[in-house]
């Protein structure tokens, strides 16, 4: 199980376009990736490839989230995804 913690750089939080960009990338990995608020229990983690699930987390600018994935390419995939989260796509 690979894990990454990322800080949301987008000013609108994980909403609209940033969320769309992120879920698209998450789908592209082909892995089952979950995302949760940093302090939330693992059971509350949601599917990172679903925009709605992402929005349901209600994550704002500056919040920290945990990405989790399993598989041979998980480390590289999570590196790429956390880079996306830590970029402000509206800048």
């Amino acid at each position, binding site marked *: 199980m690979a894990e990454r913690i990322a800080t949301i750089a987008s000013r*609108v939080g994980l*909403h*609209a*376009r940033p969320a*769309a*960009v992120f*879920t698209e990338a998450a*789908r*592209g*990995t*082909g892995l089952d990736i979950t995302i949760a608020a940093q302090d939330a229990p693992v059971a509350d983690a949601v599917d990172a*490839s*679903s*925009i*709605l*699930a992402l*929005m*349901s987390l*209600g994550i704002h600018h500056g919040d920290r989230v945990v990405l989790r994935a399993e598989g041979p390419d998980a480390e590289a995939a999570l590196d790429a995804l956390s880079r996306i989260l830590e970029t402000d796509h509206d800048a």
Partner: protein
Amino acid sequence: MSKQYASLAGNIIDLVGGPDNIATVYHCQTRLRFELRDNGKADQEKLAAVEGVAKTLVNAGVFQVVVGMHVKDVYEEVEQQLAASGHRVTETEEDGTSEKRGIVSTVIDFVAGAFQPLIPALSGAGMVKAFLALLVVFNVITRQSQSYVIINFIADAVFYFMPMLIAFSAANKLKSNPILAAGVAGIMMHPNWLALVQEGKPVHLFEVIPLPLASYAGSVIPIILVVLVQARVEKLLDRIIPAAVKLVFVPMITFLVVGTLAMTVLGPIGSIIGGWLGLFFGFLSTHAAWAPAVLIGASLPVMVMFGLHNGVAPLGIVQLAQTGRENIFGPGALVSNISVGVATLVVALRTKERKLKQIASAGSITALMGITEPALYGVLLPKRYPLIAAMIGGGCAGLYAGLTQTSRFATGSSGLPAVLLYIGDNTLQHLINIVIALVIGAIVTAVLTFALSLKYEKPATPEEGFVVDYDSLPTTASLRNGGTGTATLVRAGVTELNAPVAGVVVPLSEVGDPVFSAETMGPGIAVEPANGAIVAPCAGTVMVAMATGHAFGIRTDDGVEVLVHVGIDTVTMDGHGFTDAVQRGARIEAGQHLVTADLDAIRAAGHPTTVIMVVTNHDKFDAVTAAASGQVGSGEPVLDVVR
């Protein structure tokens, strides 16, 4: 250009067992064809469920993934990704595939792989011949003119130098050096050799080894034997010659050894076999001219399913090279494809099932253009009755084409445009006959399909939604669970989404927010609302209820995720103007209250009031299509998600 298929390609590679499991990969018009080291490592079920994959099948040891017309782009992406992973699919060990394939499959696979790359060249040359025939028929040029001679050899070069082309592609297929193979073919066709042959005196190498006099121009079988042997010789030399001098000695010895073998043994044997084939063609055309066209016309759909057509089509190419015309495969294939297209078209007109209608409409057009796989797997096979009609229709058309000895003068795809390949021999007779055959096939097929549809095509009812038909269709099977007992109308494979508010429907592309209008959040529809009563477009669970009350996410029982967004940039209103919003986690029925929006307050804050509804996980479904335009009432169906 092919970037959009990056994730699809990645998924496919993973699900066939990863790069290491792939011995070779190639593609035909709609399928990726993998030779896997272990077919057991591929997850057929998961793969079939991937969006963008219509179907998977294993045939003759080849693992096939039916992708569709854009297979070339997907293939390029697969190739790139395999290369990027440091995996070189071209360097297959001889014993790479653990799957034992029968000798018939091996032969079909080799012959198909060697001949398929030639088709564009043969088709081009054939069309030039057709053009030349037209020039003669309409008295633009005479057959004695220099123009005739020039255009004729422009067209003829491909046929004359066929051994070189075959050498190249066959060597490619065998993974030996294609340039060396073409070089050996050049030896066999050298003008000096031709001069010796024409002189007619016995020829000997070193005064002892006899070289039988045979011309190899335009021949097929000799070069295939040569390339088969050359591949072995090359591999052997590669092993025994030290790496330092390989570059010099492997080609040199290959030329000397294989060149000699070609001129003394392999070429002459090939010529003899070719002669027998010629006799066979002659026998067919004098005694049973109708047989091939009837056989192919009736059974091609079945042959395509088993990949057998790849074994027969090259016979046609051999016949074309030897006799300048072809009636073994082409006429039967053309009438069969058109019959398949017509049968599918009739199904499209007759069926009440929306998804089938879509597949059938698209499939019939591609079939008429010569690509039958979508129609075959999407319509004919699941429905069976149009398959039977198309086979009978194709057989009847084949009988006419066969009896009239209709021939084509070039190979090419077997769709409607291919009738032009039947212009040749400086006459239009073959063109006229093939058109008559096509008309016969189309009429018989259409009438039979229609008659059978009266018996087998029942109106679809909601209860029938998940039964038989759709299970046999190539669809994304992943999300078919659940889906009963809700107020959402679940038709066969379609989830309907209703207008979340009364008003006027506008296309998403006209919405004043680039995130939505560019479909970044997914495809959907927008409504300019007449009032502020926002209701649920479908039954499901409220996954998202923004604290601001302006956006809601609902997941239906069959997995469709819908976002309803009230107004543009209304997130900045921070809940002002939105009252009585539904809570997250609530179970909701279609038409049930979501929120009350104060449209005047939204306008006063300077925002458009447009209500937007998008399907955020559209990639899991076949299509999201608008089902209404203009004025709609609250709760009227406006969007269809085709599963």
